């Protein structure tokens, strides 16, 4: 099936969504996502940040779609034409969605553990405005402990439903869901029942904001002062392939590995996440691939080396003599 996104044509198999097709083209035209998660079925469609304009439905039915559609939940048709960044209307609408997501967000980034790896920060930086037009009291909730390892800070939640879907789909027995409705809706474990299973820690990884945080890591360190490395161990419950966040020889936290779109590659078990905090527990493979745009990459040896080489190359080209070589 041929689909054109922002004037770039791509051939994709049947059943591909517009978002997946856009991601195949590249990050430039891929719409931002806050709730969609490839690994989780029926996720997406809630946050509305990935809306795009369909200017031509298909070859058979060339009529445009009347309203913007959520690209994460709309499958492509042969000959479909889609506008994302080329449509000023969509950029304006997206700005509106980001504003809605931020009006009740506490903006407590300076004390939030998610800062630096927060999707809402990135989204606000790229698509938001510098000033808020909201002048009312923001929504507030008390912090809740979900079990002894996870902290729920509902005030920061954007109700993406990712954690709900994770609990539904990777473990048996639904103990986590959404209660109340409208802007009073909150994620919750029913009657404050703790999430008590081997894979509960994954809700921390899928959370795009700082609503669900790892209590063993809270306030330990800003993420950009830690060094992420890919590591593995032999585990009977999960694949054992993780990302270990180091500060010197200290293991500050363990998370699942994330791909280019900030989505978990393989879910990991709580034992790997919480119980193995020694460097000796892990076989370290090497530095994790972190996007150059991310603030975390400043500690990245791989990139630093690359950068140093580039600088040297440029200096050489300019006939610049390094300090220590100067007479």
């Amino acid at each position, binding site marked *: 099936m041929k689909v054109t996104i922002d004037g770039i044509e791509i051939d994709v198999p049947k059943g591909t969504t517009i978002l997946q097709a856009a991601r195949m083209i590249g990050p430039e035209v891929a719409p931002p996502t806050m709730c969609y998660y490839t690994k989780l079925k029926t996720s997406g469609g809630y946050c*509305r940040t990935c809306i795009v304009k369909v200017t031509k439905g298909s070859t058979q039915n060339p009529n445009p779609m009347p309203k913007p559609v959520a690209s994460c939940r709309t499958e492509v048709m042969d000959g479909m034409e889609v506008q994302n960044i080329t449509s000023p209307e969509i950029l304006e609408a997206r700005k*509106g*969605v980001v504003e809605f997501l931020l009006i009740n967000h506490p903006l407590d980034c300076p004390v939030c553990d998610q800062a630096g790896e927060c999707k809402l920060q990135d989204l606000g930086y790229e698509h938001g405005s510098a000033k808020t037009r909201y002048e009312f009291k923001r929504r507030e909730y008390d912090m809740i402990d979900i079990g002894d390892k996870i902290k729920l800070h509902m005030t920061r939640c954007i*109700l993406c439903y990712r954690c709900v879907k994770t609990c539904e789909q990777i473990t048996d027995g639904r103990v986590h869901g959404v209660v109340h*409705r*409208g802007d009073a809706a909150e994620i919750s474990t029913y009657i404050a029942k703790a999430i008590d299973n081997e894979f509960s820690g994954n809700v921390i990884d899928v959370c795009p904001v700082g609503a669900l945080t790892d209590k063993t890591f809270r306030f330990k360190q800003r993420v950009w002062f830690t060094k992420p490395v890919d590591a593995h161990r032999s585990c009977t419950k999960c694949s054992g392939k993780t990302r270990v966040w180091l500060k010197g020889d200290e293991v500050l936290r363990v998370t699942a590995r994330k791909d280019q779109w900030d989505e978990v590659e393989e879910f990991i078990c709580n034992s790997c996440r919480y119980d193995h905090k020694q460097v000796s527990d892990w076989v370290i493979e090497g530095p994790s691939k972190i996007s150059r745009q991310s603030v975390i990459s400043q500690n990245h040896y791989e990139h630093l080396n690359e950068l140093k080489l580039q600088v040297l190359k440029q200096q050489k080209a300019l006939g610049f003599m390094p300090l220590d070589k100067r007479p």
Partner: protein
Amino acid sequence: MGRKLLIHNDKVPNIHTLEVYRAHGGYASVEKALKTMTPDQVTDEVKKSGLRGRGGAGFPTGLKWSFLAKPEGVPRYLVCNADESEPGTFKDRYLMEHIPHALIEGMITSSYALGAKTSYIYIRGEYFYVARIVENAIREAYAAGLLGENILGTNFSHDCYVQVGGGAYICGEETALLESLEGKRGNPRIKPPFPAVAGLWGCPTVVNNVETIAAVCPIVNMGGDEYAKIGVGKSTGTKLISASGHINKPGVYEIELGITVEDFIYSEEYCGGIRNGKKLKAVVAGGSSVPILPAELILKTAKGEPRLMTYESLSDGGFQTGTMLGSGGFIAMDEDTSIVKNLFTFARFYHHESCGQCSPCREGTGWMEKILKKFLNGTANESDVELLWDIQSKIEGKTICPLGEAAAWPVAAAIRHFKQEFLDIAKSKKFIDVSHYNRLNKITA
């Protein structure tokens, strides 16, 4: 006198019982359809009649039925949407309360046309006493062999169940209704797939309004062509209108589509004019979510033609100078009404009823309510009108289900037609008392 097809014998004593209902010609359509017609013939009659969905969107019912997927070995369902929650609409309640058998008769005939072995009537939580009435009627129908195995000695078997909702406006949206019926949280589903392909428990499902289903009986009885003769153009048949507001005779009226709006408001047969001899200021013609229109635009279109009570005439001029027939919740307001205060009650309702699934509606409805509250408190600025306009434009069309639009349209229309009123309030800083709403706030908070 206009012709009545649905509530013509609503004043007959004990019409809610099967005995009296049958004595007045009830269940004739079931006899006719099951014994003399094939399911496709019934569908064809409905198509010919030009009947349009009475729930609000006005989608042709025959067309909706023909979209129903019919795979082998998969059950099909008919679901009746009796979750009538639109402020200003109370026609379904009236019908179910007085003539519950009209609904059940329609359910059997429609299910026969669709080949549905099971049907559900989803009644909103606040109508629990109506649910009892309908349940009693169903019990009577089972006893008389009109429901259950081999109805009236034919091969057709059918079961009908009543399900009472939890009292959420959002469960009137068809996919949220199906979720709720399945026992889940009533969040609207993302479409496609549409219920006609994958609805209740993933099976093909038709969801129709109470009045639509009840209207199938007269269509089968009199024939689709005959039914289509009533009305104007594509708006055929009769429609129940819930008239409320500052009129002399509020209530439920059955009108032939095509009478003029002026006639409806001022004639003695219907609303009987504005109470206390006041002048008409504005009308919300189809339930709280459709755009409000000032008196001069509701009586005459922008072209100067008289406005008719039809789907087409009411929407003439788009949203710039028109509105929608919607579900027929006709709210008239006299010259003393504060549009801003009225809008606040609507905004408050949509804020309270948003399901919270998608961000523009969850956050935007509350924001709009807070800004409108500022107007009432006398603390609003003139720039707040612009802000309000901007917020509604960012909600409209960006949400999963139509609740976003339903919340945005009244705000847009009020600003479009009554902007001066907003500016005057912002300038005067006058305090408008809504403390009597606090009682409600305590209940709902």
